[in-house]
Structure formats: C-alpha cells, structure tokens
C-alpha cells in the first residue's frame, strides 16, 4: 500500500496509516469518555435540539466541502483509505455486540465501565457513527459535483446509508414505545413507558373484542411417573390432530371424533362454546406390538378446566397439548381528543396508525388463551421514520443497481469511492 501511496503525486497524503489512526483515536476517545462518564447510558437531546444539531452538522459538512474541496484532509476523508478502517472500526464494535449479550445486567466492572452491554447507547458507538456520517457525507458531495448520471448507483448506496444513519441516530431519542393494557369494553387512555411512567395518550382505546384463531392441537406421549413428554432421540414426538389417523412411535391413533371447543358432561365431552371450553377428541389407540386397544377422551385443558389424558399402559399416556395460536387480533374502537372516532381490527403484522401513533398487537393473557379479555398493545411514535424509510428505499434501489450493473469494469467509479 505504501508504494501505491508514493506513486501518487502529493495531493492526497492520506494513507491507511492516517485512516487507521483516526479510527483508533475515535474508538479510544469514545471508550475513555464512556469510562469517564461512569458507564452511564448515553442520551442525546430530543426535539428540537437533535434536529438543530443535525442541520448544523449537514451545514458544516457542506461548508467545509465548498470552502476546501482540495484540502488533503477533505480529500482523505473522502477516500477508501479512511473508509476501510472506519468500516472495520464500526465492525469491531458490532462484533463486540455479537459476542456480549446486550441489554442485560453487566457481569463485571470492566463490562459495566465500558458500556459493553448497551453498546448502541455509548460514546464509542456514537462517535464512530458520526465519523461514518462525515465520510459518507463528504464522499456523496464529492460525487455530486459535478453531477453525472453515471454516479446514480454510487449516490443511492452512499447517501441512502447516510440518511439511515443520520435519521436513526438523531431520531432514536424521539421514538416512543409504550405499552397499553386493554380490557374488554373498558376504554383506556393511559399507557406505560419502559421505565414504568404512566403517559396520557391523545386518544382512548376501547377493546371491543379479542379473539384467537388456533391451530389444531397436537398430541404426544407422556410418562405416567414424571408427567413429562417422552422424547425420542432427544425430541418430542408431536402430532397435529388434522387427520383421521396417525402414528406416534408404536401407537396407532384413530380419531373417532374431534371437538374444536368442548366441555366435559359426565363421562364424555360435548361441543360447547363458553369461557374455558377447549378442544377434545375421542380416540382409539392400537399398539401392534402388544396387540392392545384402548378408547377414550383426551382434552387439552384450559385456565378453568384440567386436561384429560388417556392412559395407554402402566408407563405411558396419550395427552393433548394446548393449541398454538394461528393469529390473534383485537377489534378496537378509538376515540381521539380531536373528535375522530375509528373502528379497526389489528393483529400481529397488521398495525394501525392514528395521529402519529402506530398501534401494534403484542400480547394477551396467555393463561386464559382464547378466552383472554386482556389485549396488550404497543403504541409507537417515531417521527423520524419517513427519513429512515427514504434511506432504506434509496439503498434498495442502490442494491438493484449493483445487481444490474455488477462490478465496475477496470476500476470504474460507479459504486464505490
């Protein structure tokens, strides 16, 4: 690399040495600041200060570029020799995150002091982010002047990433994620933030109905003595009751009757649909090895009724497991303080947005399962999201460019610095 450097004529004096020194200094300074601050969580100022800081940052970047476009530092910051060490420095921090479990209590004093369990909110992470933004900003400006359509792919990839880093870094503080517990037919207008603080919302939400659509339940063999599921080669043998007959190990199971929602009446189960009802099945179990045949009911059980298992022999029984949810959804009625009234149904992967807030379905009373009268909602406000999305879409188009045009021929300059 050094001979390559010497080949160049003076103007660009940045080599990997400078690039590495700057990156290393940033990391060291970051960790020193982190240690000096006693390992606290770093928080940047919220709106409008973060927006102001962002605008000043972009303004300074443009000013520096316009005033000294040929200065060796500006040229150096816009080169691969600065970019590679910076990428590696950032990768180093992310690698730490890949090995040290995040968002848990630090295990020892060093981990705590350096903030290794919450790296995203530490000085080194912030500083290296800032440095990457400077590099991406400079190189984007460099490629924009003079404008050339050939640089489109380059612009999409680099400016897209700049925008994502810029808006996520500055916007993280303005993002609010709250939890709201909604009980059926009780309008709720308060939510709780992660620290447990109660926050009043600009609307109230009434849970009209919570419902769960379930998969068919699975059956398995349990050990009579321990009550545990019998494992075969270390794995549970589970069979979903969605056919008339199937086998588990040496048992052949024939399903005589299956009731989606049922309750016990005397010795048998009948179809009912009331709180606490659950699936049941009448089965006949054959075992060809000992030529035994047993018939009876199995019931998955619910919060209010115990499960019923079918004893096959002295050692084993057949049991029905509680059904797993296929989807769960909440029918909501939302009344805003501005007078709007909206009815909607949300489910996982289908949130609903109103007045700058997005409402997500997250949980319910899992003990009660489909009879839960509680729906746990997450309310998210993320005013910087449009910028993050813009960055993401630019990068997607950039990726499409890479795919279509491939590697620039003979050191061409379409994509990278």
């Amino acid at each position, binding site marked *: 690399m050094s001979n390559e450097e010497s080949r160049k004529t003076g103007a660009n004096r940045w080599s990997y040495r400078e690039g590495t020194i700057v990156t290393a200094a940033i990391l060291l300074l970051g960790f020193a600041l982190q240690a000096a601050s006693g390992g606290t969580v770093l928080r940047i100022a919220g709106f409008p200060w973060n927006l102001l800081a962002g605008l000043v940052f972009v303004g300074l970047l443009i000013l520096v570029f316009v005033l000294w476009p040929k200065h060796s530092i500006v040229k150096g910051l816009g080169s691969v020799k600065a970019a*590679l060490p910076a990428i590696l420095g950032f990768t180093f921090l992310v690698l730490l*995150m*890949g090995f040290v479990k995040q968002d848990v209590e630090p295990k020892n004093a060093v981990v705590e002091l350096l903030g290794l369990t919450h790296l995203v909110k530490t000085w080194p992470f912030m500083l290296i982010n800032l440095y990457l933004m400077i590099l991406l900003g400079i190189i984007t400006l460099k490629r924009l002047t003079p404008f050339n359509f050939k640089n489109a792919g380059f612009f999409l990839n680099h400016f897209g990433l700049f925008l994502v880093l810029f808006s996520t870094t500055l916007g993280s503080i303005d993002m609010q994620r709250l939890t709201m517990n909604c009980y059926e037919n009780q309008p709720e207008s308060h939510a709780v933030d992660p620290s447990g603080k109660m926050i009043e919302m600009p609307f109230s939400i009434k849970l009209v109905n919570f419902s769960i659509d379930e998969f068919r339940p699975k059956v398995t063999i349990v050990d009579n003595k321990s009550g545990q599921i019998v494992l075969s080669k270390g794995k549970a043998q589970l069979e979903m009751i969605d*056919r008339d007959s199937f086998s588990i190990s040496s048992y052949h199971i024939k399903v005589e009757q299956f009731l989606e929602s049922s309750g016990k009446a005397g010795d048998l189960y009948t179809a009912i649909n009331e709180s606490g009802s659950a699936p049941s099945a009448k089965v006949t179990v054959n075992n060809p090895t000992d030529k035994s045949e047993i018939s009876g009911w199995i019931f998955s059980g619910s919060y209010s009724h115990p499960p019923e298992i079918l004893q096959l022999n002295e050692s084993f029984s057949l049991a029905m497991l509680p059904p797993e949810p296929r989807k*769960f959804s909440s029918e909501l009625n939302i009344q805003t303080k501005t007078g709007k009234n909206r009815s909607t149904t949300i489910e996982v992967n289908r949130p609903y947005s109103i007045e700058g807030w997005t409402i997500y379905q997250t949980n319910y009373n899992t003990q009660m399962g489909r009879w839960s009268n509680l729906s746990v909602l997450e309310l998210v406000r993320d005013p910087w999201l449009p910028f993050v999305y813009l960055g*993401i879409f630019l990068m997607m188009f950039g*990726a499409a460019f*890479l795919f279509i045009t491939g590697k620039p021929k003979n050191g061409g300059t379409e994509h990278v610095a």
Partner: protein
Amino acid sequence: MEEQNMWLDFPMYASAAFVCWLAASGLFLSSGKKMLNQLAAGLSFAGTAFLLVFITVLWIHIQRPPMRTLGETRLWYAIFLSGIGLVSYLRWKYKWLVSYSLGLAMVFLIINLQHPETYDKTLMPALQSPWFIPHVIVYIFAYAMLGASSLVALRNLFFAPTEKTIKGPIQMADNLVYLGFSFLTLGLLFGALWAKDAWGHYWTWDPKETWAFITWMFYLVYIHYRFRHANEHKKAMAVLAVSFAVLLICWFGVNYLPSAENSVHVYSE
C-alpha cells in the same frame, strides 16, 4: 406424521439428485468434449429439478413455506447452489466452479439425510407476513452466491494460479460478490421493513440482526478493498474467505452463541 411421511420420500429424491450431480461433476472434470459437457449440464439440471419437485410437493403438504427449519433452508441452499453453478457455467464456462458448487450442494444433501429433523407445521403469528417469503428467498440466494464466491476465493488461495491466469477467476469472484451483496442488502432491508410491521421497530439489534450486519460489513470491506487495490489478489481472496466464515456464524453459528438466547431468528428443529 404426514410431514415426516413427506420426508420419508426425501432419500429417494436426494439420491436421484446426488447421482445426477455426481455424474455431472465427473463429466465436467474429466471431459473436454462439447457433447459430454452438454450432457453434464443436463444432468446437473436434472438433479436440481428432482429437488425442486420435492420441495414443491413438501410446500403443498405442510401448508406453509418450507423455509423455517434448518433442514428446510439447507434444502434451498442445495437447490440454489447447484442452480448458480449451472448458470455460471452456461455464462462463463467455469467447469471447476460448477463441480465445486455441485460438490457443496451434495454435502448439504448428505447432512439432511443424516439429520432428518422433526418438522413443525405451525407458524407463529409474527412469521405470517407477506415479507416472509421474499426475506428468506433473497437471503438464501445471497448466501448461495456468496458461498460460491468463497469457493472461488479458496481455489485462488490454495491452488494459486499465476498472476496472469488469476484475472478470470477473480472477476468471477467479483461478479458473484456483487450479485450476492445486492441480495444481502435487500434481505437485510426487507427484514427491517418487516420488523417494523411485526414488532414496531425496524432494527432491535437482535443477535441475528447483529450478525447479519457484521456479515454485510465484511463484504463491504471486500468490495471497497477490491476497488482500491485491484491487483492485491491474495489479500482480497483472504478477505473473502474470512467474510464467508462470518456468514456461516450468522447463518447457524448464532444458534450456539450465548448472546443469542431468545432470538426470534433461532431456527426451530
């Protein structure tokens, strides 16, 4: 078990594919004749087709996309790897590359035959999203591309062609990396958009996300390095080999890392 019944047919399809690929590799490596090469290409395609039939039937039977368990993703990997090998042969005529790809695809088939896993029919609500299929397909395609590029890298490192003859192979590595990297980026971004819908945030530094990001960064290093140092072939190939090691950690090593407990991405078995 119906699903297991489906997988009972797997050895049949897998052996058919295996025999086709073995014959194809043998022909590619031994013959110089055009006719035999065409036959080899045909056999290579036939092997992939057997697996495509199997995965289609499987998909219909389990009523969910077969992209969740490690065994299922290995199946896709074998399909894409063999497919990419063939396409790259048709386009660039690298016979050794198609043989390598087929060899690696065969390894995945053997792993699946040795470790038939219990397959789960249920899909948790968070995974039921229109993003699921594009996210996984794009990722597997990216992994297969980058896997193939690392084969090129290893060949260039250990069976060192001279500086004169390396030009072709290194261009091939670059092509594969560019294609793979664009898919890797798309997979990452699709994942972010999906996460926003499912969990309310586009990026939570879940261990799988963290490692996917690390992988992305390593290939980013390769691309920038190659751009600036077009003639440092060996070093570039070393970067590519290391990148693939990171990719492998991301793909299944994450499951064993202490930092990854409770990750939504840990594949079920």
